[in-house]
């Protein structure tokens, strides 16, 4: 269905009559003198600072303690049913008391009835405290981390990059991406920031060192 395709394109071309015919898009120089990274401190320290600023919960844990820490986090929240993607490493839930619902095409009602979701992530930008999920390993489809009210996310240090430019370059845009910077929030009422609206109202991050 083209609708007014030719009409709009013709108008665009007529509007650009002043642009020399020989000019190529690349002839318009884009100065990229901006920084790849901003804050020269240890990345984990920076990430924790940023996440806490967004009122996310954070814990730095060791690889060996991860199953225990996951179980403890879910217990602290009194999570009875936790949703996990199909390819979540089995040992992550090995100590969990809650019922584990693996996402074998769970319907929305089932997701809504769950108390929380446990996932990994793809890339993390420390400077902005941004966790990116790309539906890759241990992450599942987008709805999983959206409908339940509590998101427990495991971040490995090798997934952390300093800032936005490195995060963008590591990501594959053909995958559906969700960038998460803290729990859902709004400032729509008198610009007073309130954490927790439609997305998970609590985000907890376990950083595995």
């Amino acid at each position, binding site marked *: 269905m083209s609708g007014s395709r030719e009409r709009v394109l013709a108008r665009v071309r007529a509007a650009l009559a002043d642009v020399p015919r020989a000019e190529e898009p690349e002839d318009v120089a884009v100065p990229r003198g901006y920084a790849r990274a*901003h804050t020269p401190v240890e990345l984990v320290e920076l990430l924790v600072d940023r996440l806490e600023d967004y009122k996310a919960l954070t814990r730095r844990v060791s690889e060996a303690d991860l199953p225990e820490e996951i179980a403890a986090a879910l217990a602290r929240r009194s999570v009875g049913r936790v949703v996990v993607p199909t390819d979540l490493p089995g040992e992550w839930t090995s100590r969990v008391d809650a019922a584990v619902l693996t996402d074998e095409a769970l319907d929305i009602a089932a997701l809504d009835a769950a108390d929380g979701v446990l996932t990994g992530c793809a890339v993390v930008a420390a400077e902005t405290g941004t966790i990116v999920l790309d539906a890759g390993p241990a992450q599942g489809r987008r709805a999983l981390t959206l409908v339940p009210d509590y998101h427990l996310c495991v971040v490995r240090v090798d997934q952390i990059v300093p800032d936005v430019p490195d995060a963008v370059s590591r990501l594959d845009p053909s995958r559906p991406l969700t960038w998460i910077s803290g729990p859902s929030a709004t400032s729509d009422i008198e610009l007073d920031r309130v954490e927790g609206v439609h997305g998970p109202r609590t985000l907890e991050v376990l950083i595995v060192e």
Partner: protein
Amino acid sequence: MSGTFLGMPPFPQAAGIATGDAQLRHNLRKATHTIRGRRASVVGELDDWAELRAAGKAIKDRTLRHLDVYLERLEETVTAAGGHVHWAADAAEANAIVTRLVKATGETEVVKVKSMATQEIELNEALAEAGITAYETDLAELIVQLGEDRPSHILVPAIHRNRAEIREIFDRTMSDWGVPAPEDLSDDPRALAEAARVHLREKFLTTRVAVSGANFAVADTGTLVVLESEGNGRMCLTLPETLISVVGIEKLVPTWQDLEVFMQLLPRSSTGERMNPYTSTWTGVTPGDGPREFHLVLLDNGRTDVLADEVGRQSLRCIRCSACLNICPVYERAGGHAYGSVYPGPIGAILTPQLRGTSSELDASLPYASSLCGACYEVCPVAIDIPEVLVHLRGKVTQGKGHAAERAAMGAAGWVLGDEKRLGLAQRAAGRARNLVPRRLPGPGAAWTDTRDIPDIPAESFRDWWAGHEKEKKKGGGR
């Protein structure tokens, strides 16, 4: 319902009414000062802000100067990823396309992500006429929709409402639209956000069609990008079966890498955060994850007119952050409604008259809704020289049929100022007649003096004073 801006009085009149509203001025002052401070703090953190701004400007200039190339590329990449691309020359055409697409699904309800483009084309009203109900899901948009109000800010459309007014709107109207507000609803923002969560939850989980806009569309990859805070965007972009995105043709960026610039510029300029809570990006459709059908409606609706103006073209760099509104002394006092458009503030004062033309009195008055202080240019993350465009548009307005009295007055002034003798005579005549000058000019000058004070005319002109002073000096041997 006052959902449209048709028939609005020109800016000076509307602003005059708004500045008399003490509650509105209080709400606006509080909000704009808060967000100004937040923006300044997170922008100040980045020592390369000037470089990011220069890159953002250049990327948008590259896109705009070769927009036909990038539009065709985007059409190709979106289609290759399983999406459908539609082209709309104007609002009526865009509304017809969206209405047809919704009808084809058999559904009569859609959930909406906050989108300036769909407000601009008044999509909700068009859908309503076709028997389709559109539910706004952004908290501020919900407040505006339930209150049968108009948006007054790009980022925070209900910025003119305080918590007590919002509580009253929720309490009174939520039951008409679905889940009612709790009986003991307080005016605590937390309680109000919770009421919105409960009210919209069922809509999110059951509605099968969503309508969105987009902050960016990446030509090379066919990727659409939506930045948001509440999770209502993710709900609409992920849970329904059909997604329809209405996107202005100026929203394109050439490459995925370009987002590394805008994802730093936009959140810091807009909400004053290092990063907004949620950003979703999608490329066509992904089996088993999100909507099964994706439609992209590319919207012109006056944008090519803006593109054709070599001075005005830079207005299309706008990424709708609203930093210029928050810093503007005129916006802070007049509020957003006075601009009579979904695009208020300094960016609205240049965008609206270019998109709609200046044939109405309101649109012709917008380029004058500024003191030309330049604060908007300073904070603009893509360096739109708003004062330059304002002055350019004032020129166009005075060349056209608008503001004829001002043009006549300037012509007369040119005649007087052009000759030394004429000027001297005019000044002496004015000095003698100064007690006779009314506070308000008669005839066509009346509108001008309604909003301006006539300066006091001194008894003696500077030129006469100087001549006399020099004479005295010679007599008395100087001081």
